[in-house]
């Protein structure tokens, strides 16, 4: 399985998720919608596994490959949280995000070589990247929920259940974020001799984590929730810069993490 076959799988997943989103609010078709949504995830996972076998190395290296995982995990996380909290919009929003990332990979596929430089050949490689991708999916979903809550508050509606959902997603997402960061430290120590060297990517990872800590601690004393929600949105923007935007920051061109 190579990148040229991706289009068939991507279209399969996109069709499944689109239909699932259309049907999710129709009581009669709820079950079919669920099955379609899971089928979309399964199709994508099949591609990832076959692609991995063909590459003979884990597909975690290029931005294109991490986008693949992001589509997979955001929909998976969306489904699990939907099952727990029963908000149908979770299916629709995570579908949209998953589809957007698949389309970006179709329009702008990056060159996927099989080689892996020595520094990346490490036991930490897979768990480090996986933890980050899961965390990004959780925090992405939390922000979507945050925006919905903000709109509800503007319309003078309260939703304690949704507040709890957001906090829960942030706690779990932050847990994974911290794991990703710490595994990065341990890996860096083995590969480069120091666990932290304030490389631009590391600086951004640091400030993304502290931004989420601001959110978490701001919720302890229940300040105006609108302020907390805006902190959540800003944190996600910082997170996206860390993940995707570093390549475009002039001061970060010397980073060893630009790829």
């Amino acid at each position, binding site marked *: 399985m190579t990148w040229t076959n991706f289009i068939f799988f991507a279209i399969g997943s996109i069709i499944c998720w689109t239909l699932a989103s259309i049907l999710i609010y129709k009581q009669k078709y709820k079950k079919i919608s669920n099955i379609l949504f899971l089928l979309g995830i399964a199709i994508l996972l099949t591609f990832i596994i076959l692609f991995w076998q063909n590459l003979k190395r884990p597909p975690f290296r290029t931005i294109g490959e991490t986008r693949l995982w992001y589509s997979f995990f955001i929909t998976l996380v969306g489904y699990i949280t939907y099952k727990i909290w029963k908000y149908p919009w979770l299916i629709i929003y995570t579908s949209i995000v998953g589809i957007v990332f698949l389309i970006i990979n179709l329009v702008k596929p990056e*060159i996927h*070589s*099989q*080689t*892996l*430089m*020595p*520094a990346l*050949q*490490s036991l930490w490689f897979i768990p480090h990247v996986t933890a980050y991708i899961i965390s990004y999916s959780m925090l992405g979903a939390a922000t979507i929920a945050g925006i919905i809550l903000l709109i509800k508050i503007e319309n003078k509606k309260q939703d304690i259940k949704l507040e*709890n959902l957001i*906090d*829960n997603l942030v*706690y*779990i997402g*932050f*847990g*994974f974020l*911290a*794991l990703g960061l*710490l595994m990065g*430290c*341990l*890996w860096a120590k*083995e*590969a*480069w*001799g*120091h*666990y*932290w060297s*304030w490389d*631009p990517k590391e*600086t*951004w990872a*640091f*400030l993304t984590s*502290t*931004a989420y*800590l*601001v959110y978490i*601690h*701001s919720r*302890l*004393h229940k*300040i105006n929730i609108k302020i907390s929600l805006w902190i959540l949105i800003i944190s996600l923007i*910082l997170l996206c810069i860390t993940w995707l935007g570093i390549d475009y*920051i*002039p*001061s*970060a061109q*010397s980073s060893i993490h630009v790829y």
Partner: protein
Amino acid sequence: MNKDKRKIWQQPWSYKESLVIVLGIIIVGFSLQTTIGGFNFYLLSFPFNIYIGIGIILFSVLSSIFKRKAFFKWLTSVHLSVSLLIAITLLALIMGITRQEAIPLNEKANIFHLLGFNQMTSSWAFVLIYSLILISLGSIISKRKPAFSKKYLVFILNHLGLWLLLFSSGLGYADMNRYIMYVEVGETEWRVFDKEQKVEELPIAIQLNEFTIEEYIPKLAVINKKTGEVQPSSKPQYYQIDTNTKEETNLFGHKIKLVEYIHNAVRNSDRTFKEVPMKASTPAALISVKGKTQKTEWVSSGSSVQFPQSIDLDSTFALVMTPPETKSYISNVDVYTKDEEHLQGDIRVNHPMTIGSWKIYQYGYDNNMGKLSTYSSFELVYDPWLRLVYIGIGMIFLGSIFLIIFGINYKK
């Protein structure tokens, strides 16, 4: 929100006061920076870091004794925590968008240099906020009553872990030493270069027995013979040689098929290759090309002692092999210390060797010579605080796993 009608600076202090004080500290930091310059971390080297550490711990204990006093209440309040977190986030943000380097020689210092933006971690504002985080966090930890509960367990793992990490990495920085050692194959070396490129002698000697490089199978590409550009120039296309499938592929309008591949090849006198396992060898492939012309010829990327060989496709384009990428480089060494310790083994990237408080890393080799490099270089790192750092990391690691398992429910 009726109770919020108190005036600013009236106790108990809340967000307003906390933010103003934190901002004040940053301003003090910037003033210090412009008048006396950056903070010198080497002032913190042993034993001064120990004194400061003891001071911070004593202060934290003190604040737990006086926890009912308004000032200590504020010092351990969520309001100050959030304000400090905002401050460190903003300082890191400045750091993330400013180039972190000394002022270039041909440039005059501008306002950002004067404020220390270009070397943020040793700027006074950063150091002061970092220290206040240590003090506040330490006080928060010592104030909290230990309890056998999920809530306390998660709290202590994450907060004490973070405190240990910040404490040992910040105060231990000055005690860490890094050196680079270059060793010729077959030789023993104990002289190193320090951070300032000065030569020093270490209590450690490395004998390099063998240095080997493994390379990946290279790729093929079509280039413009005049410009050397890989085609199509807008979106260069590469074909990864695959010895398993030997499928026919289309590369920039030419059908190419792998007939034979030799990883360690040496050229015969007639543009053909044979397998010779030696360091000066080069990868070579016999390729059949179907396009305007049909031919089956050898292509090779060449090495530092063998010329590359391409296949002419027409008057403008040629098929070439890219230089192979490095898969791994391994130094087989014997390491001796003054305490008569002796270790033998391989050192490669991601697989350092540990001996006492030292770690030895594979650093580099002669890139121009590639497989024929006659030396290997190592980075030797001495960090007596590392164990404390790892304990901190381990605690937060566990704390994060609990956060994932319990979510927000750990509080119940």
